[in-house]
């Protein structure tokens, strides 16, 4: 059989999934002219709480807000969450909260609201904060934004392998399909656009009920989500996504009882590191801070 590989070791040549292989080879390791050196190390917070979801499976807004604040404080190594938020967001900022409205697994409105509350508490005028997904190119707040907070659920995806924080910014281009080639390899280029470059202050990968496999035209079945009850929070989108991808791969191994690599390979995460210099994809260089409930954390 083929040897095991993981999402962040794309240099491994052959990957097998669903009886077929994906051959990962050329180009992933190069750094082109538009690239820049990523940070030497990145800090990422994984926070989980058993009470993050209610008995009916819906998110508990109060608990989510507490998780968010605890994670932000731990991320910035500041005791008080309010002070941590003020490190991220300044009173004069105009803030776009980039959400995700995919109908089967959307960003929880309670989490959007928690972010909005903290941004306003950090001194931003309420009229200078907006939440949007599909309408970011027309949203007047997003058009004059000085800062973005990126928040979306983790799920498998037909074109990119995984729907990640990196992928979530695809709505900032008028023709998203232009970035679907090579399993969305060039998503990192979007983060270099003037309207985004250097403005994304925080990335939150929602792992409350992540989706680890997709079936059918609508690419969703309740059979392939599970109550992980977590958030992955970081400033570095690559490190956040690479961490989430490891959990999804572990869940697939656990569920299928065999190596079932994500297909197509979500190599946009590693390419965002190696080609675009957007962050760290190597788990050896990610400082993972674990908070809260860690049973079956899969990482």
């Amino acid at each position: 059989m083929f040897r095991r590989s993981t999402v962040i070791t794309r240099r491994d040549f052959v990957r097998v999934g669903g009886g077929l292989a994906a051959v990962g080879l050329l180009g992933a390791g190069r750094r082109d002219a538009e690239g820049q050196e990523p940070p030497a190390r990145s800090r990422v917070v994984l926070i989980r709480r058993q009470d993050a979801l209610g008995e009916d499976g819906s998110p508990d807004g109060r608990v989510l807000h507490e998780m968010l604040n605890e994670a932000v404080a731990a991320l910035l190594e500041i005791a008080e969450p309010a002070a941590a938020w003020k490190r991220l967001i300044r009173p004069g900022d105009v803030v776009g909260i980039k959400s995700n409205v995919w109908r089967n697994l959307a960003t929880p409105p309670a989490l959007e609201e928690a972010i909005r509350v903290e941004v306003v508490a950090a001194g931003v005028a309420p009229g200078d904060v907006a939440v949007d997904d599909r309408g970011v190119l027309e949203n007047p707040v997003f058009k004059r934004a000085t800062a973005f907070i990126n928040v979306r659920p983790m799920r498998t995806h037909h074109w990119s392998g995984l729907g990640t924080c990196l992928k979530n910014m695809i709505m900032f281009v008028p023709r998203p399909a232009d970035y679907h080639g090579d399993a969305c390899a060039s998503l990192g280029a979007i983060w270099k656009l003037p309207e985004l470059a250097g403005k994304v202050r925080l990335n939150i990968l929602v792992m409350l009920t992540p989706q680890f496999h997709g079936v059918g035209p609508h690419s969703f079945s309740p059979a392939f989500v599970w109550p992980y009850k977590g958030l992955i929070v970081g400033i570095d989108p690559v490190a956040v996504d690479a961490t989430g991808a490891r959990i999804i791969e572990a869940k697939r191994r656990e569920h299928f009882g065999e190596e079932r690599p994500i297909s197509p390979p979500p190599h946009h995460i590693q390419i965002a590191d190696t080609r675009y210099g957007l962050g760290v994809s190597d788990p050896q260089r990610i400082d993972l801070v674990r908070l809260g409930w860690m049973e079956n954390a899969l990482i």
Partner: protein
Amino acid sequence: MMRVQIGKVVVWSGLLSLVLLLATCGGRSGAPGLAGLRGQLPDEARGWRAAGGVELYDQESIFSYIDGHAEVYLAYGMTGCLARRYNGPPGEADLALDVFEMGSPADAYGVFTYDRDGERVEIGRDGLYRYGWLSFWKGSFFVSVTAESESAAAREAVLELGRSVAALITVAGAPPALVGELPPDGLDANSVRFLHSQQILDTHLWLGEGAVLGLAPDTPAALAHYLRDGWSAHLLLVDYPDEGRAERAAAAIAGRLLAGPPGGGPALGQEGRWHGVQQRGARLVVVIGAANEELAAALLSETGAPKGGG
């Protein structure tokens, strides 16, 4: 447009043609198209009852219905999609029925092969059921029935609804001829994919960045996994309209896999697997990741040129 007078009634023959087109709406060989199926879809299955009417989506509006994945169907020449929801009995989730009309039976087969997990069920052609989802192809149609939450009752409703829709499609269709030319020895039938798009290939077999194979609607391709005596390999066949395109593709993929020209025997890659690239007329034959040289050589030698000289 010719005008025909019948008594005092003026009939525009062009209008008549349009009506007939709508009646068959892409139907082939006398089979009903989407418009014909639209009025025949079941209103009920095992206690699940149709909720509202039947929605019809075209190549533009499909993006609003299949959020984020419409390109899969468009890559196989989708011309339209019928969608209908069915409300379940108390405590049961809804069912979603989607009937896609594709560009040809080959494309209906192709989009079916996009996801081949599941247990075989005798519904339509090659019916598969897994996790509340039934899929099959028949004629130029790809049919999907999904239970939003699986239960024993929902499974039976899904299967019954699928059987009813399959019975409405009167033309069986045939798989693409290229699939029949995959060497049979050791072929994992459930691994066979038919495609003609780089993006679709990428989801099954990633050969590196860039569209080196020049895949297009006029280049049918078949991909399959083999297992012989415990040794595995993958085989990709692509038929081009002319030998020139096949030659260019062979050179490009050989440069990537073999670091040399195509046409020779298998070559050992750095990762310890064997690859091979050969051109047979207008056909490209690629062996990827064979566990040993003998298997790679056998798969190369067992694949011929396109029938008809190619």
